[in-house]
């Protein structure tokens, strides 16, 4: 190569340019860009690549009302529409700001409820259960004809509907349907929130007038085992209690928790009075004793308004409380006598005072005779119908009849308690899917079932809670898919009404409860009048709203503007529109209290001369007392929402399923280890539990958490193990507060 470029020159050129290139930012920039690329979440592994998040381009908000418990919180759902698909999807839930009941707050269940539509235990077709956790699909028609056959077959047994949230439109449909049957029952299970109407009727003779707790104005709350800081009542009541506890000066609310268990409320109450198990009523009677003896109440007035406060007949309240002098109560409850006196004086001094006795959702309500003692205390305190006491609330109209009754009301089945039903009498049981917020141990239901054979139908959308005991599960629309209404929460003093309109259309497989009742009625050839059409929830709701509108009082909350208007200023379509879009009607105030007479010992009920104290006496050497504890929505799908693992499993905030707390001294005496496994035995069975030592728990107590098993990976629950609530002793009046138990290492 004479004048050409040699190979060496070429190499120099290439090498030189390579080095030169390296000195420019280009290669480094490329490296950096690739670095950023590898930082994208889809790189390099993981299943998240498959997870498509909705685009956040089209966001809208819908308002509705929460149906997870009867408390009627306003819910604002953030929806995203998926591009291309056009389908809406809920991507966020918050409370509706300014809502008269909840004012923008939601509980943990309500916030987590966004995932409920995709709950792993949601059923996607009507099924027939053929064994523990095993089921086969069944067509709706087949199921209905089976159920109809069962109903027509059960001539001796009764047909019952178990409705956890009474006074909804669907409740009236149930009552109507059951009323058409000759042997139908409409049953409400026990709840822990409000004042049982039966109790007020017996002590105050107020009929079906319902009472609520006016906690907004109270300055002293004596709570007998009511979880008032742990999911009790409406959010507004709850917030008001929190607010009032906080504020200084005269308005400051004092909260005294009388409870055996070291519940959440007991932990953070101003004062915790740890009475021995089953002696809450004794403590209440002790307080009554002190009040009467120290003239802390208007005894003359009480004598005037009550026949059984003090009379010569021998079964008067005075006679009863005479048996509960402080020394005796102290011996029973384990609380020093001077403490009792001190507390009573403070309660009597610090008015308005209110005595609450709902009971814990895990351990259920108190027995009626215990409730009488608490109610008596309320009467002594003068808390009936007064500001900061128990107040009656207005009634809501039924879709079938107006407020003041009509012919149609005769066709509605009467409302019964579970304890009213004779044991072994139910042949067909239809369980509504809604939740009362309070546990219902299966045995309380089971003992009412006919031993000769029974058919149980559940309308729950999930294979969870008591639905697992059903023979047929006809899954109703899930949360945010259901059309429903929410009546006044049972703890409230003011009537309210909300309509739940579905935000998402229910899947095809879901069975609307009213549709089911309609089909069943058709299959049973029940005569239908135009006004007793069970179908068309829309129609029924409209009827009810119409009747409400005609009352022309109260305010209507508009969820979209966050403001309230007078109902009288709204036309019916406007009212309906407000309600459908997450609004809420709220009454002007509590109802008028009729002139009442007090009946301390419970009217028709046989007065008890002596409230028996449970959990003592014939205890064996290693016999302890099992106290189930839970919070709102125990054992429901809402509590077993997978994301609830944050509370139960991924943090120590709430004890996970079948965990028991015992005092270290008790635990060590039983040979247990902190964090170890144990077996709890009662006369009803054995449960396997995890043991936690907690020095704040009363010795001799097994404080057990009632929580659904967080979740199972399969849709079907595996073999259902006995949980703590299953081994509780059920009393004849369907309460299960106290159970003697043994615990030993497993």
């Amino acid at each position: 190569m004479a004048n050409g470029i040699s190979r060496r020159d070429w190499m120099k050129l290439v090498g030189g340019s390579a080095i030169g290139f390296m000195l420019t930012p280009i290669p480094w920039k490329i490296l950096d860009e690739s670095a950023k690329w590898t930082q994208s979440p889809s790189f390099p592994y993981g299943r998240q690549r498959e997870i498509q998040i909705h685009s956040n381009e089209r966001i809208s908000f819908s308002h509705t009302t929460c149906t997870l418990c009867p408390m009627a919180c306003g819910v604002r759902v953030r929806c995203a529409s998926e591009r291309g698909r056009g389908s809406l999807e809920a991507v966020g839930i918050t409370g509706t700001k300014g809502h008269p009941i909840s004012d923008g707050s939601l509980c943990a269940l309500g916030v987590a409820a966004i995932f409920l539509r995709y709950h792993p235990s949601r059923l996607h077709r009507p099924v027939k259960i053929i064994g523990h956790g095993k089921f086969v699909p069944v067509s709706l028609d087949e199921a209905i004809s089976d159920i109809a056959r069962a109903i027509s077959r059960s001539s001796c047994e009764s047909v019952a509907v178990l409705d956890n949230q009474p006074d909804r439109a669907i409740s009236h449909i149930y009552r109507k349907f059951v009323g058409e049957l000759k042997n139908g029952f409409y049953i409400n299970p026990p709840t822990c929130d409000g004042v049982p109407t039966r109790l007020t009727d017996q002590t105050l003779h107020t009929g079906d007038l319902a009472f609520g707790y006016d906690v907004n104005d109270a300055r002293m709350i004596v709570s007998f085992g009511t979880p008032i800081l742990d999911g009790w009542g409406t959010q507004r009541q709850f917030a008001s209690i929190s607010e009032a506890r906080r504020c200084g000066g005269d308005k400051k609310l004092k909260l005294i928790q009388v409870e055996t268990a070291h519940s959440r409320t007991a932990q953070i109450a101003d004062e915790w009075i740890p009475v021995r198990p089953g002696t809450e009523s004794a403590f209440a009677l002790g307080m009554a004793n002190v009040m009467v003896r120290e003239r802390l109440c208007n005894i003359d007035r009480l004598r005037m308004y009550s026949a059984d406060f003090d009379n010569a007949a021998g079964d008067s309240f005075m006679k009863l409380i005479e048996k509960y002098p402080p020394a005796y109560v102290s011996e029973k409850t384990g609380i020093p006598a001077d403490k009792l006196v001190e507390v009573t004086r403070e309660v009597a001094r610090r008015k308005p005072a209110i005595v609450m006795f709902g009971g814990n959702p895990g351990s259920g309500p108190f027995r009626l005779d215990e409730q009488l003692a608490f109610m008596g205390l309320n009467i002594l305190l003068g808390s009936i119908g007064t500001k900061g006491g128990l107040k009656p609330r207005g009634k809501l109209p039924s879709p079938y009849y107006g407020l003041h009754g009509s012919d149609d009301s005769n066709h509605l089945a009467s409302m019964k308690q579970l304890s009213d039903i004779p044991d072994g009498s139910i042949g067909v049981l239809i369980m509504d899917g809604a939740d009362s917020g309070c546990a219902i141990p299966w045995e309380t239901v089971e003992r009412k079932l006919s031993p000769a054979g029974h058919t149980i139908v559940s309308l729950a959308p999930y294979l969870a809670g008591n639905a697992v005991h059903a023979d047929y599960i006809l899954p109703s629309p899930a949360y945010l898919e259901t059309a429903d209404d929410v009546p006044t929460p049972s703890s409230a003093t003011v009537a309210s009404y909300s309509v739940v309109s579905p935000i998402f259309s229910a899947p095809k497989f879901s069975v609307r409860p009213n549709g089911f009742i309609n089909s069943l009625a058709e299959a049973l050839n029940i005569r239908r009048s135009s006004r007793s059409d069970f179908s068309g929830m829309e129609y029924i709701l409209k009827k009810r709203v119409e009747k409400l509108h005609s009352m022309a009082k109260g305010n209507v909350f508009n969820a979209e503007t966050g403001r309230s208007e007078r109902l009288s200023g709204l036309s019916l379509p406007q009212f309906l529109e407000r309600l459908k879009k997450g609004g809420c009607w709220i009454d002007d105030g509590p109802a008028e209290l009729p002139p009442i007479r007090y009946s301390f010992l419970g009217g028709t009920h046989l007065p008890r001369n002596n409230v028996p104290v449970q959990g003592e006496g014939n205890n064996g050497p290693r016999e302890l007392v099992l106290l189930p504890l839970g919070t709102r929505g125990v054992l429901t799908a809402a509590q077993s929402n997978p994301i609830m693992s944050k509370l139960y499993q991924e943090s120590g905030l709430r004890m996970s399923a079948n965990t028991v707390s015992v005092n270290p001294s008790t635990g060590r005496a039983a040979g247990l280890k902190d964090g170890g496994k144990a077996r709890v035995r009662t006369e009803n069975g054995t449960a396997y539990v995890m043991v936690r030592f907690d020095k704040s728990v009363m010795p001799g107590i097994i404080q057990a958490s009632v929580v659904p098993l967080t979740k199972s990976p399969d849709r079907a629950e595996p073999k259902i193990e006995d949980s703590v609530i299953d081994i509780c002793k059920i009393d004849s009046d369907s309460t299960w507060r106290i159970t003697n138990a043994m615990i030993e290492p497993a």
Partner: protein
Amino acid sequence: MLPWVYGFTWQTGNIIFLSIFYSVVAVILGSFSIAAIRAFRDLKPDRLDEIRWHFDFESLPEFAKVCRHAFTGEVNQRVCRNGFDCRTCKVHSKITGVPRITKSVYSEGEIPFGLKISANCLYHRGHTWVRVESDGTLTLGLDKLAEGLVWSQCEADLPAVGTRLHVNGTGWYFRKEASRARVLSPVDGEVIAVGGRKEGFYLKVNPGNDSDLRHLLKGLEVGPWMTSEVERLEMALGASDGAVSLADGGVLLDNIAANYPEQGWEDILALMLLES
């Protein structure tokens, strides 16, 4: 990391840290590259021989590196640090400048273990002898000890006539099957003739003008050296659990290699020929 990478800042700490890091990387890479370039340049036979000898000598145990003057008792316990090259050794030149006081147990020509030492031969520590011929050329051959060790039926890769040899470079190879043994060249010079098996493997070398043979053992040094080498051999054999042992003070077996498996024998031979 670099000024145009996200997260880079012109903070003092950052600059100091990265400068140190880049310096360290530069030093590591630089010294490694230097080594690699040098190694590339080293890939020439002469240089490789030099390196090989350097390495072999470094690997010799101390007792195999005893100074020739320690054999004669001129110094006490000295170990050679100069690759057995006395021509450039200061100690050697100093010692040879003074009169000898010897304490060798052997007189010239005496034969330890029955090995013959030729008085007119110079010995290299790689078990070769050098005889200065009258015409100024040198004849090289294996000494008796090595002869006894080399395989009986082996081949030799003798250098071609005209090859230049270097002191402590490769003389020639013995080869038997896969095994191989290298004989160090005791002198510098050009090969002018080779003798094969029949002639007893020798090379004739023209050392050129400045033939310096000071590094070769002679006279009284040879006996003690040979004795120590026999000890070394005995030890090497002993290390392999003495398939063959030397009769104490007796005669070295003829051709002990024949009695020793080849694979292992290669090592013993190589050790004696100063290959590590």
